[in-house]
């Protein structure tokens, strides 16, 4: 689709790209760690990290102790969670665009976000137990239920490849998402004063994320990434159309199902942890395709790193640069939308 933009970097340099993006992500993490309400010089951060790993003791001045608390209990879990969610959304976006043969698909095409939002709204509305635990659980359950309903809806046993055709999937996703959006509006209508809680949750945030949440996302991310890379070559063929894929030896039904579930689980856990964050899953695979070409074996690792870096910077801006923290979902849409318009327009000329 966006083939008319010339590729600046010759293909086959994916190794360099991965190293480059990894270093950039590492540097971004350090810079982001130093930024915030309390300025912590990068040198001190390095000292603290090195001190922690090399020696148990060291000079335990009260200043370093405060720094340590801020770094390890507040900033690092938030930054890492955010990076992991960005990575998960980008990988999920690559999978969906490949399976649905559509460079404009994103992790939410199958209605996963609407399902998660519906689940979260119910949990908030009925004030189910300690909200902090139950909202993500409900969001995740909502996302999974939506995914399986969409799969059920688009499945037709007569069709080739078990009938999981991209058109059926996209249509079913849109229908289910539309119904769920109406449901969410109804829940908001019922919610009275709690409506602001629902709205705020839906707009997404990484504020006060903790280590367990990071662990959860990173487990999903590692598993999801391994599965995706394992089937990356099959995904290339799938993105050429179903007859091509089958005649070249891809077990289309099996691989499509595995990758759809993988992509949706990545999206579901991301939404459950951080609310709905748009445009990362759409934009990152798109932009990285200019660098790597459409080969998913190259696109997946590069997109993962770029997604992590992009969302990390978006979160750093709202956390440490802007005078007030604005919801990250709003920020990514406000920045991502115009960027997408620009790329789209430029590629048409």
């Amino acid at each position, binding site marked *: *689709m*966006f*083939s*008319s933009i010339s590729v600046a970097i010759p*293909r086959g340099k994916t190794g360099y790209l991965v190293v480059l993006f990894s270093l950039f992500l590492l540097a971004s993490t350090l810079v982001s760690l130093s930024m915030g309400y309390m300025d912590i010089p990068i040198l001190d951060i390095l000292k603290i990290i090195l001190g922690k790993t090399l020696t148990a003791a060291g000079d335990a001045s009260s200043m370093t102790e405060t720094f340590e608390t801020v770094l390890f209990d507040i900033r690092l879990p938030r930054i890492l969670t955010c990076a992991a969610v960005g990575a998960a959304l980008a990988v999920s976006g690559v999978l969906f665009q*490949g399976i649905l*043969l*559509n*460079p404009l698909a994103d992790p939410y095409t199958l209605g996963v976000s609407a399902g998660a939002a519906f689940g979260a709204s119910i949990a908030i509305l009925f004030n189910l137990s300690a909200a902090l635990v139950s909202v993500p659980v409900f969001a995740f359950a909502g996302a999974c239920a939506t995914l399986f309903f969409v799969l059920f809806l688009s499945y037709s046993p*007569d069709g*080739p*490849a078990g009938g999981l055709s991209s058109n059926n999937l996209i249509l079913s996703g849109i229908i289910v998402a539309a119904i769920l959006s109406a449901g969410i509006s109804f829940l908001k209508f019922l919610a009275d004063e709690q409506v602001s809680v629902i709205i705020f949750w839906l707009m997404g945030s990484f504020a006060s994320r903790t280590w367990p949440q990071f662990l959860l996302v990173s487990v999903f991310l590692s598993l999801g990434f391994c599965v995706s890379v*394992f089937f990356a*070559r099959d995904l*290339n*063929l799938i*993105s*050429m*159309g*179903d*007859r*091509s894929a*089958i*005649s*070249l*030896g*891809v*077990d*289309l039904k099996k691989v499509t199902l595995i990758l759809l579930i993988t992509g949706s689980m990545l999206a579901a856990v991301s939404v459950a942890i951080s609310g709905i964050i748009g445009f990362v899953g759409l934009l990152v695979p798109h932009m990285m*395709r200019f660098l790597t*070409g*459409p*080969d998913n074996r190259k696109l997946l690792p590069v997109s993962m790193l770029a997604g992590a870096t992009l969302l990390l910077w978006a979160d750093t801006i709202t956390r440490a640069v802007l005078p007030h923290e604005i919801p990250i979902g709003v920020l990514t849409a406000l920045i991502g939308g115009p960027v997408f318009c620009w790329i789209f327009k430029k590629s048409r000329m």
Partner: protein
Amino acid sequence: MDISMDHIHFFHGETSILEDVTCRFAPGKFYAVLGPNGSGKTTLLDLICGFRRPKTGRILLGDMPVNTFSRRKMAQTISLVSQSYEVNFPFLVKEVVMMGRHPHVDRFSRPSQDDRKLAARVMEMTGISHLAHRHITELSGGEKQRCVFARALCQDTPVMLLDEAFSNMDIHHSLYLLGLVKTAVLKQHKTVIAVLHDINLAAGFSHEMLFLKQGRITAMGDTQKVLTQKNIETVFNVTSKVEYNDYVQALQVYFKPL
């Protein structure tokens, strides 16, 4: 490899697409499948390569039923040049051709020297070497078809199915690639089953013809024997004259304007 279809029925919802189709395809022969739009030609190929499964009936490849083949084994046996080749992602032409090696190269292995040589050779054979570094999305319809054709050749299978594989190609490339396929049939004993719309091209290259009408086989056999005015009239509902043409060195059909 012998292919045999035994009393095949296929339905699309309630509509019957193929009815009681029984036929055999032998190695070392070029088969042309002819018939009007919607007569079930593409479905016939889809059934042979396992893209669709018949409602009833049995399809054997060699002496094994089609459904006992793994997808990979199937792709090592049968290649398909399909009618639809629209691609949304800007793969390079050489990447597309190399995809033909997918069933032969293990997951996580790189293509070997031989794989790369084969890909280069088929690109030269199909006249797309100069397009190797272009994006497939930028090519014209005929160039894309040659690219997909090269991919099927790169798959290097004993059976090739061609579904209107020449519909967008100019006459030079059509004749050239048909000649290439015919040589492969004669020298390497491949089985080629081609759905063709151009009856005269089919007459020039095929050993046997199979006429389909409304999902039934109306005639099948040696091209010399079944390419008759009567069969063309029954299947296509047009009047024509069939005669041997010295210049083409094959039967040719002349149609009366309706």
